[in-house]
């Protein structure tokens, strides 16, 4: 028998985006029923921390994103380890894989991403893993006990770095195969990528750039024993990680006729094309304040904030998403590099940069506005530049100082730092106070 239950708020996805929404809903509505459903059988954990989990064999408790009593304390019903298979947006219901149906008044799709798995010959062999979920990390951990000396990571992006660090800590010899000419090419500029590659070399990680994997091979006909690159070279390995990236998990939304570009399209309130349905996080294509258009920005801070905005709107508190942009802090192998926005801009952008020994700072500008940044080494004041970028503050009067060794709030114009000092309550306050300098 199909049992229909009713949730005032139904959240699909129990990760950063879903939690952001749940916390906002509870701030605005203490009583309305909140149900969170996730295909993963765990309470919300920090996805980036699966790397630490694999490196140190942490217990689950150490990587939880919220304390274990989160659901109880907030009066949230969590249905874990079950997938939603279908939505009926007209009827306002969701069908679960066990045949149950759940009715909802407001729905949030925070379904995240799925690993991109290209059609490489041999990808189905045992010993080949993705690195996106805790279960992936667990499976890799078990595989390591089978005796893994060498691993090949396909993809030199954020996920590739993250799993490389964990494997090195577990004593595995790692080779990264990156199709483009440098690692982290989508989030760093050439100079910062070179710093990362140098560091990888120091810790014994080999990097093959400009290469792809043509085949994942096995001498035994079963588990992986080697890979063959596109130039015919053979690399022995007992473990292969597919780390090319994630793509929005849009199946549910497309089945329901919700508008999708690369991700689910949302407006400034994180609402989809379908009434009462919202989306956020890796699955959504939301406003990017650097590009001034909707883009995929699959990072955790944007998932949480988008979820928070969606949650308030679902609860009837009109709230606008200020936008997000690509931004990352890379601390792998002891490095300290942050980047945001356009790290590697087209030629018609202005670049202010300074080297300070092994450290450097670079700020990308267009018409007096910050459009991108990379800080390597000395990163403690980088957030000030990020704030100027986010709040679209004209920096023409002091742009050279942004990359200086002693950069700080005091390097900004007096009008701006005074606004910061006098309104130290909310990060948006200074921008409001300094909007008079916008556009110079």
């Amino acid at each position: 028998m199909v049992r229909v239950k009713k949730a005032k708020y139904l959240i699909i996805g129990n990760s950063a985006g879903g939690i952001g929404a749940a916390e906002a809903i509870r701030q605005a509505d203490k009583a309305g029923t909140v149900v969170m459903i996730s295909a993963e059988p765990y309470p919300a954990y920090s996805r980036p921390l699966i790397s630490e989990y694999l490196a140190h064999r942490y217990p689950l408790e150490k990587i939880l994103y919220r304390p274990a009593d989160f659901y109880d304390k907030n009066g949230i019903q969590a249905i874990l380890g079950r997938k939603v298979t279908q939505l009926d947006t007209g009827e306002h219901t969701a069908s679960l894989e066990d045949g149950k149906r759940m009715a909802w008044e407001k729905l949030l799709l925070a379904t995240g991403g799925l690993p991109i798995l290209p059609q490489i010959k041999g990808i189905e062999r045992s010993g080949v893993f993705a690195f996106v979920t805790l279960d992936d990390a667990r499976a890799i951990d078990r595989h390591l006990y089978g005796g893994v000396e060498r691993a090949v990571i396909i993809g030199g992006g954020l996920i590739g770095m993250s799993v490389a660090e964990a494997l090195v800590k577990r004593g595995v010899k790692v080779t990264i195969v990156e199709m483009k000419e440098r690692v982290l090419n989508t989030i760093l500029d050439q100079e910062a990528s070179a710093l990362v590659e140098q560091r990888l070399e120091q810790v014994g990680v080999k990097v093959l750039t400009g290469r792809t994997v043509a085949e994942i091979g096995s001498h035994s006909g079963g588990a992986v024993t080697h890979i063959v690159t596109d130039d015919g070279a053979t690399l022995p390995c007992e473990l292969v990680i597919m780390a090319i990236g994630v793509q929005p998990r849009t199946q549910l939304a497309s089945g329901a006729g919700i508008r999708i570009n690369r991700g689910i399209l949302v407006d400034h309130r994180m609402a989809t094309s379908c009434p009462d349905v919202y989306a956020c996080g890796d699955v959504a294509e939301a406003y990017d304040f650097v590009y001034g258009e909707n883009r995929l920005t699959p990072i955790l801070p944007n998932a949480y904030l988008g979820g928070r905005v969606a949650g308030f709107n679902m609860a009837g508190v009109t709230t606008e998403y200020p936008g997000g942009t690509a931004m990352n802090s890379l601390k792998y192998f002891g490095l300290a590099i942050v980047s945001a926005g356009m790290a590697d801009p087209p030629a018609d952008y202005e670049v202010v940069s300074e080297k300070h020994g092994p450290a450097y700072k670079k700020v990308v500008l267009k018409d007096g506005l910050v459009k991108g940044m990379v800080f390597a080494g000395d990163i403690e004041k980088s957030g000030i530049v990020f704030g100027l970028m986010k709040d679209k503050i004209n920096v023409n009067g002091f742009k050279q100082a942004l990359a200086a060794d002693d950069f700080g709030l005091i390097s900004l114009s007096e009008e701006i730092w005074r606004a910061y000092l006098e309104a130290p309550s909310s990060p948006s306050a200074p921008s409001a106070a300094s909007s008079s300098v916008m556009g110079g």
Partner: protein
Amino acid sequence: MRKIYIKEQACIGCHLCEVYCRVEHSQSKDPIKAFKKESPQPLARLSVEERKPVSFSIRCQHCDEPSCVYACLTGALQKDARTGTVTVDEERCTGCWTCILVCPFGAIRRDVQQGRIAKCDLCAGRDVPACVANCPNEALVYVQNKAGLER
């Protein structure tokens, strides 16, 4: 909540706030030991910025809408709903520095030795934070809101 405000025209750039902050956050609470002997080295949770003749010290502002809390990858940073303080659970902070990238004040510091952040906690357990209590020129004030700041 009460917050720390700076009267920048009264700041003489003496860095005593930094010294007292560091001592307050040391194990020994003794300046000589804190600076010379302790390991891990205690860090000041604020920084003094100077461009003579102007100077002021910057620390966590415990924002109403804290970007750092929203950006925290692990859940270590939280805004205490009761006190308004932005707190960091040192056990859960892994030192990913994402919060540093989004702090518009540049107020969060890296404690590299311990692999986690260090930021102002308003001196939990003290009525008046150490930096405010020891500012020789009363450039730092700890008041309910800006209105309590006499100019």
